[in-house]
């Protein structure tokens, strides 16, 4: 057996293992996934809404907090030096604790808000996001377990008009499913800014939000799990966020996320292969890094075959001067027994992954009682472009990180 073949087989095994691991973890916990613990008490929740030049969306975010079916909610809006009408829009809304400050970034805004918040539980809500009515009721019961430090709702995208939004629609619904499975095996290590709940005392214990970090939500989550607490996720608590609607916007967002992840991997390297953290330290966290080259390899293999076939077809078309009768005959004479190679096996893997994507999407849609059944067709652009897009974002992120590092100082440049 030569080295290349051995490498191929090793990668096949690794990809298969990772895929099956999540499947087995899901099957073992399938009964528990839909259920949230019933709350025995309703502690006061302070919602922190940092806002910077987002006067169009902040009103909806605030009104969704007011409409929450929850007894004790405090709304703290932190205007991060907006230069548009944000401040005047917020001033008009009653029942809101409004803080106006100079532009210092999201993490600093959250820390300022945290000092003014009086709730036992803190919720972080981006200004372009909003809650559904029963989100808090579905999440708060998890805090009955003293080991739970944060609870994450399921974030969905609020718009799916163009292809970029449709791809994210599927991405969010699949990640919802994955994060729920991760939480069931005590291996969830990230939260998002779309309504996550935190114990205030824990935020104070682990040291607030890191103002120099590109992804302060990931950083705070890692601090929480590093301190021995777990992060839960509720599939019934739904929040919505505005997705990036242009490729450029998505590129910048993912570049920030990925560079932030790399930066945090370095910062929390002591957590990797740390036996004390169990499955999280020994498997899930290392996987989050190992997955990147695996993704790049998988993308290269899947697309190179397709791209090569397409290039070959275009060349042949030109060589035979667009004689379609010949070209069609050539396609129909495809010899399936002799045309399968180790490369085309990746095309089959691509097809298998597409089927898995459709099945998991349908299951996730059913779990979250999704009404838009046509949304399953979004899996087509997702399957076609997602892995390629993610690979591109990762290549760019690795480049940026290697050249410029991962601190906040580079955020404006990326």
């Amino acid at each position: 057996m030569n080295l290349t073949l051995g490498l191929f087989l090793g990668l096949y095994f690794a990809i298969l293992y990772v895929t099956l691991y999540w499947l087995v973890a899901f099957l073992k916990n399938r009964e528990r996934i839909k259920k949230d613990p019933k709350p025995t008490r309703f502690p006061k929740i302070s919602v922190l809404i940092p806002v910077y030049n987002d006067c169009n969306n902040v009103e909806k975010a605030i009104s969704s907090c007011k409409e929450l079916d929850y007894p004790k909610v405090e709304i703290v809006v932190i205007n991060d030096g907006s230069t548009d009408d944000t401040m005047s829009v917020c001033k008009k809304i009653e029942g809101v604790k409004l803080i106006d400050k100079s532009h210092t970034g999201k993490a600093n805004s959250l820390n300022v808000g945290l000092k003014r918040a009086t709730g036992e539980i803190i919720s972080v809500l981006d200004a372009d996001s909003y809650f559904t009515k029963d989100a808090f009721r579905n999440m708060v019961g998890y805090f009955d377990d003293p080991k739970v430090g944060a609870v994450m709702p399921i974030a969905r995208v609020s718009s799916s008009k163009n292809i970029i939004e449709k791809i994210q629609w599927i991405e969010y619904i699949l990640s919802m499913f994955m994060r729920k499975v991760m939480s069931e095996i005590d291996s969830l290590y990230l939260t998002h800014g779309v309504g996550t709940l935190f114990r205030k005392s824990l935020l104070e214990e682990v040291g607030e939000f890191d103002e120099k970090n590109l992804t302060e939500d990931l950083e705070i989550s890692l601090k929480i799990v590093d301190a021995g607490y777990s992060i839960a996720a509720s599939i019934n608590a739904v929040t919505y966020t505005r997705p990036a609607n242009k490729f450029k916007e998505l590129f910048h967002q993912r570049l920030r996320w990925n560079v932030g992840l790399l930066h945090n991997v370095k910062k929390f390297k002591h957590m990797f292969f740390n036996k004390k953290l169990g499955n999280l330290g020994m498997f899930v966290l290392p996987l989050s890094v190992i997955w990147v080259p695996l993704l790049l390899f998988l993308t290269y293999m899947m697309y190179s075959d397709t791209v090569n076939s397409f290039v070959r077809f275009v060349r042949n078309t030109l060589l035979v001067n667009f004689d379609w009768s010949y070209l069609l005959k050539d396609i129909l004479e495809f010899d399936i027994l002799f045309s399968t190679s180790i490369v085309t096996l990746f095309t089959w893997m691509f097809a298998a992954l597409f089927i898995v994507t459709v099945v998991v999407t349908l299951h996730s849609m059913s779990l979250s009682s999704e009404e838009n059944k046509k949304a399953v067709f979004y899996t087509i652009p997702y399957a076609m472009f997602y892995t390629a897009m993610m690979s591109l974002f990762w290549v760019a992120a690795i480049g940026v990180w290697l050249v410029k590092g991962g601190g906040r100082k580079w955020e404006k440049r990326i």
Partner: protein
Amino acid sequence: MGEKDIKNTHVTTFLLTTTLFCIGIIIGMSMTRIRVEYLDGDISSLKENIEAVELGFLLTFTLENSSCPYLQNQLDSISELADEVGGRIVSLEKNEQMDNSAYISMKKDFMLIRLKYWILTERFKKNCNSNLTTVLYFYSIRDCDECGDQGTVLDYLQSKVDELYIFPVDAFENLTIMSTIRNIFDIDTTPSIVIDGSTMFEGLQNRETLTQLLCEKYENNLDIC
């Protein structure tokens, strides 16, 4: 989920992955074996056909019995199978990097058959005053960017011109006869083609050039002219 459950999840996943992986390997190995057996069968059948043509030649030229139409039929009947086997040989070598002794010996057998087929066709042309066109096409699987293009052009022309016979051979196959033929036509690069056993062209010959040659030979009595 307790530590024990998590361990169980890994054990179950490992067993499941290993099982599926082994099934995949077994299917892959079986597929390769089936492919080689399939090709072996085709090559045996080609060998028998070539022997039948050789006998036909002996019969025709020994008894001075004019059976040229019979011989042409025999040659035609081999053409399709030879092309099919040739394509499969290339696929196996390209896709699976086959380099075991069984494959090497099978490929050598096939190249010998193809050369024999070309020689018999040339002989047929000479003895039966046939107006067929033969193209001996020298390709190589590795380090030949233009071989794919040349293959497409020749295959296309063959599909359009009934009188055209293409004989693709691996230029660097380790056979004494191949070295001899290469020396006769002074071939040291691929792709190269030898038309009607005499005219040699090095490098990629495009559709227009070859169409012009054929049209000249057949005085524009071809659909492609």
